């Protein structure tokens, strides 16, 4: 059972992702939420998170800054981070992948796209 952290400055998107994850037939433990990268780091220091879903455009610390920090810091170097963002250009996807993103889902998304992208982690 993996604990999942959803990082997005929109409460609406966090709620939608919670619903999609709960309805997916995958073994999920607890689901935690953070409103930006800094909040995400605070949660990661307190909880054993197995997978992160992160937006890119957020205040304080954006998703790519969070990704860079995690990939450079023990014990999170191997923690899979899937980006979920409106940023859909090839350049932005490539940047995320080069920084170590384990996947990329473009908003708008449907439940099947999220489930398909996460299946590899369960």
């Amino acid at each position, binding site marked *: 059972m993996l604990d999942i952290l959803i990082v997005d*400055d*929109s*409460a*609406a*998107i966090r*709620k*939608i992702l919670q*619903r999609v994850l709960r309805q997916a037939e995958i073994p999920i433990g607890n689901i935690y939420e953070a409103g930006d990268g800094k909040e995400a780091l605070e949660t990661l220091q307190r909880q054993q998170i197995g997978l992160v879903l992160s937006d890119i*455009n*957020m*205040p304080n610390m954006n998703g790519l800054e969070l990704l860079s920090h995690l990939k450079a810091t023990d014990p999170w170097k191997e923690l899979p981070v899937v980006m979920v*963002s*409106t*940023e*859909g*250009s090839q*350049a932005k996807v490539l940047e995320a992948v080069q920084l170590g993103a384990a996947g990329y889902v473009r*908003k*708008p*998304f*449907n439940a099947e796209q999220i489930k398909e992208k996460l299946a590899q982690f369960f």
Partner: protein
Amino acid sequence: MENRSQISREEVIGAIKASTEEVFSTMLGLEIEAGETPVEMAVAASPTSGLVTLIGLAGPWSGTGSVACTGAFACTMASHLLASPFENVNEEVLDAIGEITNMIIGNVKTALEEKLGEMGLSTPTVIFGRNFQTRSARIQEWTVVPFRCGEETMYVQVCLAPTAGESPRAVRLGFQIPQILAI
């Protein structure tokens, strides 16, 4: 030079239609129909009550994207997005409309970036009230696309212009064309 690229009004309209229809079909499960696409000044296209959401675009081209609708239609959109009924505009509805705008304008941006170069996107600002006006501090044309959904009309608008005299790297992300709000 990327910042000398040009883009036609038809390309902007096409990007707005494709993005809005995709967000509505994928995230909301609502059918919408695009109407005529006049070019108006911001003040002429803006409603005087309801919700207006603004997102700044910055890069070699800069400007603003906007979505405007009534409070009732905002509640309808939020109800479909969050699978919860909303009868009045509250924090959840405002957040939902901000995110819907973010997805619509974000995907317009992605579509236009192929010709205009990479642009940054600000976080959305949502305004809700009565008897207000928004207008651009610059004299500039907005591309306005109205969408019909049942009895409601929603306006998606984009205003973009080359960022003159500035290096794209020097442009601060945010509202490059300030909106003036009068309530």
